[in-house]
């Protein structure tokens, strides 16, 4: 599920602005404060672990977090808001009487931390009364003191506000000069300074950076209005992502430009203006069966919804039954070793070590080293995504490193890893994939998406749609959505481009859990073809 947690920030002038944040607004200078001294964090973490053990915990972990966000939002020629937020505190998770307990506090005095640890143990003990199956953790060897940082070259928090505002206003100008009547553009910057310690003997300090620069442009015509969102990706990178390097552009003749690890936002906004004018005049799609060619900035979300979520072990087991749902990819299908998730050219893998991706870290939020592993190999379902307390249920003894919490305040739980589709071993281009299609539609960008709670039936739209006739992109068309069933869809995959076309897109605000938490996750894939898919027309007169 893709969802945003919105809270209202601020007073009169800000009352109408909703921003997805989990922090409090702070001034710019605070964002550049140096992180808390590691030795001091270790001392505080040990207070938490010792207090938990003394209160009766058999296992404890403490996460000391400082979460910084900056949001710059503009519309047309004006700056709507600049918001700086910081959230710092400690979250303590324990096992007592075989049951999980959790408590958190922003008050990081030694006394407060010890009391919070005791509260976590008290919660665990209260719940253990009705506990029937004690928590069983996969072993993790303590790693001692370690450090890791997202490989950034330009810390986005150090770029002057003026430069960011200038960029966004230029983007707005470019869209409006080329056909848009309205545009909102935003910069979301995230820095998670996370310190993890556990009774296993790990003290892990990580500095994680993420960036997203979305826009939505609108054009109003005599018969209504059309919208086009940006084709840039949210990334685990610094401000260097916005350099717009030519080497990272992939041009599709007659359609759009795709972006890899560098985004030319100005160029994309100008293109959006022109494409909006075309959208207002574009013909409406004729419903029916088409071969679809899906560009990576679109297919990433299809992977997210139809592969990433159903292969989360907590969903398979029923832990998410009351909210996000369960999964069609049940244990019996996996155990059979024969479940044909996709055609035999489909290879899907999970990997939190992928550079520039949103999920890239060295250790997850329960101290497990991250890795790459197969989920679907040669079309067959081979594994899931799991945490320490789950892997024993699939007869494995090593966690996959999928634990994450959105902040110090919330308890960590199983979240999606980066899940990606392997490119064609033969390095063919996106246009090579298009050239063999007789009757098809090429779809770029992410649009409306909806899928059932077990991930069978889905319906996805996009941003840009182009009719393919006899191997060539012809007209821009509108009102396209495709409906399919996950297994049928992946089994209709007939071709994909090679590694030169492989791009990593992502979801900045993936929602799951109760209380709901957001996480950021990426999906890599090349331009890929799916045969004979049902396309519907979404236009309707009311």
């Amino acid at each position: 599920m893709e969802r945003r947690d919105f809270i209202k920030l601020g007073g009169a002038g800000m009352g109408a602005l909703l921003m997805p944040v989990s922090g409090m607004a702070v001034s710019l200078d605070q964002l550049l404060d140096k992180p808390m001294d590691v030795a001091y964090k270790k001392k505080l973490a040990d207070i938490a672990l010792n207090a938990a053990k003394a209160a009766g915990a058999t296992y404890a972990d403490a996460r000391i977090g400082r979460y910084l966000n900056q949001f710059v939002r503009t519309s047309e020629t004006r700056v709507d808001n600049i918001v700086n937020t910081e959230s710092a505190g400690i979250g303590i998770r324990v096992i007592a009487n075989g049951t999980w307990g959790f408590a958190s506090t922003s008050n990081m005095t030694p006394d407060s931390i010890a009391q919070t640890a005791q509260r976590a143990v008290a919660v665990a003990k209260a719940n253990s009364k009705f506990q029937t199956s004690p928590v069983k953790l996969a072993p993790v060897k303590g790693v001692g003191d370690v450090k890791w940082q997202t490989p950034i070259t330009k810390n986005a928090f150090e770029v002057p506000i003026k430069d960011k505002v200038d960029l966004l206003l230029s983007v707005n100008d470019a869209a409006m000069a080329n056909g848009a009547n309205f545009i909102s553009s935003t910069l979301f910057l995230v820095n998670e300074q996370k310190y993890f310690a556990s009774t296993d003997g790990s003290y892990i300090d990580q500095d994680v950076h993420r960036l997203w620069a979305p826009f939505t442009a609108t054009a109003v015509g005599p018969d209504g209005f059309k919208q086009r969102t940006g084709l840039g990706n949210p990334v685990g990178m610094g401000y260097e992502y916005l350099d717009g390097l030519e080497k990272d552009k992939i041009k599709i003749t007659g359609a759009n430009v795709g972006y890899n690890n560098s985004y030319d936002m100005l160029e994309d906004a100008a293109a959006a203006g022109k494409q909006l004018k075309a959208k207002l005049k574009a013909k409406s799609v004729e419903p029916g069966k088409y071969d679809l060619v899906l560009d990576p900035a679109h297919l990433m979300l299809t992977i997210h919804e139809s592969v990433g979520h159903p292969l989360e072990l907590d969903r398979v087991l029923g832990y998410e039954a009351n909210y996000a749902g369960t999964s069609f990819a049940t244990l019996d299908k996996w155990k059979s070793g024969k479940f044909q998730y996709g055609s035999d050219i489909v290879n899907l893998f999970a990997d939190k070590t992928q550079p520039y991706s949103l999920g890239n870290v060295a250790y997850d939020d329960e101290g497990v080293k991250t890795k790459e592993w197969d989920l679907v190999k040669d079309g067959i379902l081979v594994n899931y995504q799991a945490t320490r307390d789950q892997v024993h249920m699939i007869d494995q003894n090593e966690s996959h490193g999928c634990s994450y919490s959105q902040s110090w305040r919330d308890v960590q739980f199983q979240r999606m890893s980066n899940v990606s589709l392997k490119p064609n071993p033969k390095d063919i281009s996106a246009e090579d994939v298009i050239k063999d299609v007789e009757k098809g539609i090429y779809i770029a960008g992410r649009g409306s998406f909806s899928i059932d709670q077990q991930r069978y039936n889905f319906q996805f739209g996009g941003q840009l749609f182009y009719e393919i006739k006899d191997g060539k992109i012809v007209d821009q068309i509108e009102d396209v959505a495709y409906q399919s069933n996950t297994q049928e869809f992946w089994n209709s995959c007939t071709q994909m481009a090679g590694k030169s076309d492989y791009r990593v897109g992502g979801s900045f605000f993936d929602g799951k859990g109760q209380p709901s938490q957001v996480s950021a996750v990426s999906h890599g894939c090349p331009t890929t073809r799916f045969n004979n898919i049902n396309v519907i027309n979404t236009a309707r007169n009311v």
Partner: protein
Amino acid sequence: MTILSEANAKALLEKVIKLSKADQVECNLDGNIGGNIRYARNTVSTAGEESDLVLVVQSTFGKRTGTATINEFDDASLAKVVERSEELAKLAPENEEYMPNFGPQKYLPSNTYFESTASISPEDRAQAAEYSIAPSKKNKLVAAGFLEEQVRFRAIMNNKGLFAYNKDTNVDFSVTIRTEDGKGSGWVTRNYSDYKLLDTAKASSIAIMKSKNSVDAKALEPGKYTVILEPAASVGLLGNMVRNFGQRGADEGRSFLSYKLKEGEDASKAPKNRLGEKMFDEVVNIYSDPQHPIAPAAPFGGNGYPRKRTDWIKNGVVVNMPNSPYWAKKTEVPYMPSGGNIIMDGGDQSLEDMIKSTRRGILVTRLWYIRSLDPQSLLYTGLTRDGTFYIEDGKIKYPIKNFRFNESPIVMLNNIEALGKPERIDGNMIPPMKIRDFTFSSLSDAV
């Protein structure tokens, strides 16, 4: 302690305002404390408690505004947060749409706080979960549920004399109960201000009944059907429609409420939006009311402006559209803040009465994963979930497989056959609705 009394909040904010050198300053003080318990596979999975208290200071010089926030409350910290917001204001570009703060306001009395909710303990939560788990086990079913309570307060003060304070409580409970073989699923949700009203055993019995009765669902052909939407099934579509009611988007031509020029009509003389137009069945009355006895809301919005009962749709006619102070001034209409809840009038019929009077139709427990397909027609897609049943001759005949729908709330509110007694859902009051010609576009295998 993160929940301050009105007197303590006022004293703290007065101290902050006195430190300000800005032309205009506004402070928001928000505190909360809450707890939750989550269970699945008939056992508790996670549980926790959290609290926070945050002060936001917004300073303005001319049309330049800066905001800073802090969660420490000693004198030095308060001085620092005021100075920081003033520094940021001086660096910020001018906001051409800036509007000055409001002066002193009068508020309606609030009925949003209940001590019963504020005093829930971890043991209470565990017991409430057990009341749901035990009968599920007894029936050889599997329960996954969530209970969360929150106590919150908000205080707002500015240097033009405005002071607002409100304290509220909220408790949410939901449970999905499935058969062991995964062939049946039932769900129920409850939401109250007063914890005393929550009976997790009684609520769970509905999910148990739906779970058992939904096994071996039959497939119906997709198409147009008469549906009875329980309040939880229609609240998502109605909420999306009300969120798109804004005047500005309509005036700018990018809303379902934008005026469509008739052939030959002079654009300069035509209205910009559809205010005053009858767009829905005349039985449709939708409004917001902070003083609603069952689903109350705070008596003021995020900017301290008072809320009062406001009609949005009256007898099917669009009678008000929310706007911002800036847009109200620009278009020379009164400021119309959005409401804190959605109240839709209904009738006296129970859900059972509505089923009895249905010759052929489909009962829908809830709609899931609702996403916009076309903002011009407010066309949405999504799926039914956790209890979908075929009705024939006034009786539920058998469970049916879930459907994907592609439908617009505008169409829905023009095709009303009957409205039942409204119930509280997500802080709103929504009646069960019988709707004809509701569009289902495909089948789903999901249970």
